[in-house]
């Protein structure tokens, strides 16, 4: 069961998500920075937004550690697969 916790401020999270989305759009189209840096920053922002949804809307922050692990297990598998596939093009 969820540990005792104060309910998160969902509206505040919504504001964060809106701000991060705006930041992504600005980054993608307005800012004159190098392609690789842009890629990295955009991915970072996307992951941050995804984490906000996962931790606060899906309440993962307040669940037991083993449920969190279970939710996160697929991610390293996905990363391994993608990296292996990409490595075909760097030799």
């Amino acid at each position, binding site marked *: *069961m969820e540990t005792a916790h104060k309910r998160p401020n969902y509206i505040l999270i919504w504001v964060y998500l809106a701000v991060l989305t705006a930041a992504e759009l600005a980054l*993608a189209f307005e800012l004159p920075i190098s392609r690789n840096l842009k890629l990295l920053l955009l991915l970072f922002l*996307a992951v941050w937004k995804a984490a906000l949804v996962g931790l606060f*809307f899906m309440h993962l922050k307040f669940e*037991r550690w083993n449920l969190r692990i279970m939710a996160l297990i697929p991610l390293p598998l996905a990363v391994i697969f*993608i990296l292996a*596939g990409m490595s075909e093009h760097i030799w």
Partner: protein
Amino acid sequence: MTQAAATVDQMLPPYPAERGLDVYNKKLGMWVFLASEVMFFAALIGTYVILRFGATGEWAKPGIVLNIKITAFNTFLLICSSVSMVKAYAAIQDGDPKKMRFWLLMTILGGATFVGIQVYEYIHLVEHGFVPSGVREGSELAALVANGTLPAATMGLYGSTFFTMTGFHGFHVTCGVISMTYLYLTKALPGKYSKQDYGGIETVGLYWHFVDLVWIILFTIVYLI
């Protein structure tokens, strides 16, 4: 014991069992299902990354084929529907079914609008010549390929990956809208949810947030990069 924990206990059955993950079956089942969904989208998104990374030749620049403005609005809409979903959940946790029904209805409308806009976008794209196999001969976009604005070599892959990823995401959103509508009509409206029993709302909520989460990733890597 907090309010939340007390109500969760009442969603558990009266027969004794070993302590599991301290999460009732429906919710645990949904998390397990979402793990499989992550792998499914990992296959589709991974394919996109691998194909794009390995493509010889440029990829189309963002914003030329796809309409960023409408999609950015759509992204915002989906995020809003995620907020309304979690507010519905909070409402029923507090024992306010009326407020829960309001927010659930808002979520359904938000989701349905998202799908509607996506469908509109697809029709628009096909009309301009963007299809799963790439760019259609003689279309508006074919002219852009001819004058070099769009790279001929990778448009086939662009079409394949775009429609598959966003198509399956849209399919998942549609299933979510249908499920929520079903729950709204059969459980929420007749007042079957209460402070003691709101498992269905929490479970469908998890699915809905997941669908939003996948879109957050997709929007970035498909539309903005």
